[in-house]
């Protein structure tokens, strides 16, 4: 086989492999998208129907029978609040850890271990605590918990980003007459903007998707969109149609956000890969 042909064959195989992997990964999403528009009969039919008459009865059901609006609003509140808390706090923590190495590595490690802690082990104790102080079924408890568990992540991500900025720059600023804070505000911060955006997006998405705490700690007032979706698993069985519509609505904002910021996200994911 001569060169050009072999290259074409290699490319073809590569594309086929990618197509297979993509199909497997996208299958549930596509299925969800289709199911959202199927009538109850079509949903459960075997073999699954690809061609069908779309209907919006599921969406109607969702808006009438479930608390989707409240769920969306609460999810939004919690996500934004968590971003507002974890990103600035993470940034200052990351700066002191990256530049001063506060705690000589121990503190940094401690923060990392919080991330390793399995949330499910924390759920029961936190449930009891929040119940005792009357914060059950309150978005505040969700904000607090999500902030706690996202803070190590934002801190660590920002430490990597800050380490990319040479210390020389702050020193040059300080020798030129800036205080440390001015050096931070005028030199580091502008350079850190993309990093802060990425960190905020990740923290936001993690919180938006969070299910365990939302499920355990909310009843009627603090329900998030994830909780609302759980409501479609009833004693009568799983309401696939409405569930899919709800899921579609729930994932739409995050999907569009990720699409709009994909350049930043890729950078965040590959950070540290080439060093």
């Amino acid at each position, binding site marked *: 086989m001569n060169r050009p042909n072999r290259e074409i064959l290699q490319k073809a195989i590569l594309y086929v492999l990618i197509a297979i992997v993509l199909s497997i990964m996208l299958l549930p999403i596509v299925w969800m998208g289709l199911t959202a528009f199927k009538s109850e009969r079509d949903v459960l039919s075997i073999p699954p129907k690809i061609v069908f008459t779309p209907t919006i009865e599921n969406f109607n059901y969702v808006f009438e029978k479930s608390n989707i609006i409240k769920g969306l609003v609460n999810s939004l509140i919690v996500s934004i609040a968590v971003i507002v808390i974890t990103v600035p706090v993470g940034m200052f923590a990351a700066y002191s850890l990256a530049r001063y190495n506060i705690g000589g590595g121990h503190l940094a490690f401690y923060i990392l271990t919080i991330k390793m802690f399995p949330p499910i082990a924390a759920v029961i104790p936190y449930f009891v605590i929040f119940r005792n102080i009357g914060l059950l079924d309150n978005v505040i408890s969700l904000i607090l918990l999500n902030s706690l568990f996202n803070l190590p992540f934002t801190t660590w991500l920002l430490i990597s980003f800050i380490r990319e900025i040479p210390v020389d720059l702050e020193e040059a600023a300080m020798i*030129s007459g800036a205080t440390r804070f001015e050096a931070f505000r005028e030199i580091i911060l502008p350079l850190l903007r993309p990093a802060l955006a990425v960190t905020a997006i990740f923290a936001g998405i993690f919180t938006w998707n969070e299910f365990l705490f939302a499920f355990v700690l909310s009843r009627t007032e603090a329900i998030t969109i994830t909780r609302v979706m759980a409501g479609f698993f009833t004693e009568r069985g799983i309401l696939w149609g409405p569930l899919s519509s709800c899921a579609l609505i729930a994932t739409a904002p995050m999907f569009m956000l990720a699409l709009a910021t994909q350049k930043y996200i890729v950078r965040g994911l590959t950070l540290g890969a080439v060093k």
Partner: protein
Amino acid sequence: MLNDINLEINDSEFFCLLGPSGAGKTTLLRIIAGVEAPTSGEVYFDDKLMNDIPPKDRNVSMMFQSYALFPHMTVFDNMAYPLRKRKMDEQEIRKIVESIADTLRIKHLLNRLPKQLSGGERQRVALGRALVIKPDVLLLDEPLTNLDAKLRVEMRAEFKRLSKELKTTIIYATPDQAEAMSVADRIAVMNLGVVQQVGSPDELYYTPKNIFVGVFVGSPAMNIIDCTFVESGDEACLDAGEFKYRLTKSMAEMIKDKTSSRELILGIRPEDITVSKEPREGMLMLEVFAYEAVKPDAIIDLKVGNKLVKALAPEWLVLNPGDKVWCGFNKFHIFDKRTGEILICGVKTHG
């Protein structure tokens, strides 16, 4: 890490910190600048104690090896930064920045971002930023290291000229001995955090205090030959295996005064070895190992036992490996092998 440094630098002096990587030059500069605190000891500017004074109040400027230009600011803003921090009037700032940019020939780049500049241009912007405030002390950390060889030599002359114009005290760190020797008034040679010797370029070259300074300063480097101090009765000599050098009584006394060790080092610079194709009385016969046809003086590698010694030969003397030549040592130094310290400097001989 630095160890017990005691340096006094004079006003308006061009003072060099010379040493290999890891010698502590950058650390010392940073301590003077105030971005790093010494674990013990004091820093004085004239008679003022500076230890607790933050960098911004010390009226020093520093030019970093990496240039440390603010990537998100234009050249103008980079250079204006120190002036803006001093709350100067914008008109004034513009005048000063433009004037310095003019001197450094970067006026046409004022609106560019650092990433749009070449290495040489960035270097001049960094220098400009250091000069705008007319500092008491100008600190330069290996400013020429990242430039190509030709530009480096050009900039060396620029620095020398600038230093005469400016009258600020300049402290300049470099690992390049030729650079230091050509620009500095005085040099502190450093190694592993310790100052080996402080002196003018001439002092360091002609009267090195120890082996490190002897070898580090001067190119090609000083040759190091192991020898033993041997005394038999009234006679004393340095036995280097391949040859012996007879010592005068006073020299022998000097050596015995300074050290009890018998293991010594004979340090001889390539330029102090004469090489001749004709056999001469009293000269040492050595075999040529290699001949490097560098201009203007060729470097000859001579075999002394199983070691090599470098000598310089004028361009008309062409040699081949295997040739036999007769060498004389015009001037050498004697060092104590154990401590590295100088014992006798500049022993002049007639072969």
